[in-house]
Every structure is written in C-alpha cells, then in structure tokens.
C-alpha cells in the first residue's frame, strides 16, 4: 500500500535512501519547522525539543533505507520524533535545565509581554488540559493534517482510540476555553471597577 505523497518527495527519499546527504537535507528543510513547532509544544523545555529534533533527523537518516511508503514520510518522521522525545523526557534533567526552568518561573518584562500574548493560545490551553497522547493526536490531526489512521500509526494506538480521543479532547478543550474566557472577562471587569 502506498500513500499520497508528491513525486518530487519520493525522488528525494529514494536518493537519500541511496546515501545522498544533499537529498536528505532538502527533506530536513521541508519538515524541520513543522516538527520543531510540534516538539516545542509537546516537550517540557526548549532543550528537550531541540535535542529531540536533532536526534529525530539523525535517526531518520540512519534508518531511512528501511522506510517503506506505507505511510507518508511525515508520519514516519513524527513517529521517530515522538519516540525520541519520550526517551529524552525519561532522563533526569541536568542542573542547567533546572536553572532554566527556575528562571522561566520569573519572566522579565519582555517575556511577560510574549506570555500575555500566548496565554490565550488554543494550543497552550490544549497542552495544559490534555494528556501527552491526546495532545499529540490533536496536533497531528489538525496541524499536520494526518488522517486518523496515520495518527494511530504515529502514536501506536488503534484507529478507534484516535477517533474517540479526538472527540473527547475537543469537548474538553471547548470547556476549558469557555472557562478561560470567562476567567479572563472576570479579571477585566475587576480591573475596570
């Protein structure tokens, strides 16, 4: 079984499978931003996201000869990245990462501005509301435009689980957003008074 995948991409994959680093670099250019955004949203800190991104591409290059177009290349790549992130999050944080986390707890004026802008971001709420697997399923489905089967393959869950959890996550997120909005409007009213 093959999947919808642009021919140019299949050529690049084929060349990279033969060992062309240049062809693989073109694939990295194509997917690096999307993968980085996902990892930043999913990881507990920026360092983990950056490490997972690098290790995912290295692992993808190393195991590229075993890739078969049963699923899209992006599905395969995200599966590797999720595994790398899982492996990184199991290790103990280094002292630098702890200090980074501590410093993040007291943001400066610039960070406060960015934070305020992002506070009502739907994906930030989703990250705070949903579990790892549910968040990943939602991101892959809505942002990466994967099918339910592809999401299931990427997170190693059956299609039925993906369908049910997409629906439940949407409901939970909808409730959380309404709560967020009501809290936000209450704060605005208090300030006005």
């Amino acid at each position, binding site marked *: 079984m093959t999947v919808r995948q642009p021919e140019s991409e299949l050529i690049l994959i084929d060349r990279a*499978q*033969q*060992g062309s*680093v240049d062809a*693989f*670099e073109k694939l*990295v*250019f194509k997917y*690096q*931003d999307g993968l*980085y*955004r996902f990892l*930043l*949203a999913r990881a507990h800190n920026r360092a983990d996201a*950056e490490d997972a*991104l*690098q290790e995912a*591409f*290295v692992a993808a*290059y*190393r*195991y590229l*000869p*075993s890739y078969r177009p049963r699923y899209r290349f992006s599905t395969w790549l995200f599966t590797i990245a999720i595994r790398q992130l899982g492996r990184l999050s199991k290790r103990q944080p280094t002292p630098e990462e702890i200090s980074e986390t501590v410093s993040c707890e007291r943001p400066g004026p610039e960070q406060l501005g960015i934070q305020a802008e*992002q506070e009502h*971001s*739907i*994906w930030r709420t*989703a990250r705070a509301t949903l579990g790892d697997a549910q968040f990943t399923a*939602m991101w892959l489905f*809505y*942002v990466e435009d994967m099918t339910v089967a592809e999401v299931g393959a990427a997170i190693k869950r059956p299609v039925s689980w993906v369908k049910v959890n997409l629906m439940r996550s*949407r409901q939970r*997120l*909808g409730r959380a*957003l*309404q709560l967020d909005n009501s809290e936000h409007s209450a704060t605005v009213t208090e300030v006005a008074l």
Partner: protein
Amino acid sequence: MNKESLQQLLRSAPDTRVSVSARQHQDIMREVRLSNATRKQPSTGWTIPAWGAGMAATAMAVFYMAQAPQLTPIPAVPEKTGSSWAALEQKLAALPQEAAIPETELEKELERLKSDLARFGIKS
C-alpha cells in the same frame, strides 16, 4: 464555542513565526553527516517467509543425516556376562608376573625423596 469554530481555530493557531535557525539546521546536518558511517545498509527489498526458512532447514537436516556414517547397531540380545568375566580372568592370568608392582615402585620413590630431603636438612 461550536465544533466548527473550534476546529477552525485548531487548524489556524500554531505560531508560524517559530522556525529552526540556520545554526540549528547546520548542527542537525553536521550530526547527520557524522552518522553516515554508522548508517544501516540498504536492504535487498525481499524477505524470506517463515515457511520457506522452515523448508530449507528440513531439507538441510535430511541431507546431512544421509551423509552421516552409519553407527554399529546395538545387538538385540546382550552377550552373556559370565563368559566375559572368564575371558578377562584368563587375560589377567596371562600377564607377566615379573612386571613391576606399582606400589613397590612408589615406595622406592618415596624413600629416595626422604633421603634427598634429609641431605638438604629438610624435615619431612
């Protein structure tokens, strides 16, 4: 918030300003190039099914069994032990009587060792 507006929001929300820097990209590609040596070799694209491997193993086993030397079959009726004992007794009786008895030789060796020890002043 209805389902459609939520879905619309989910599809449009991710911050597209976030991107991988040139330095990060260079780091990735440097690691990729370094990993080139340890890269898994391309596979041939075909695989052997389990039943095929099983058949090959059976064929090899049959072939080697046919090549193996034939073993002497065990006699169905065991020999009488009485006759074996008698034959052994006769063989022992035929051994030359003048052959050195091992115990005597050992005693002589022990005596030689004792005298050597005494010569060097070592008490046994």
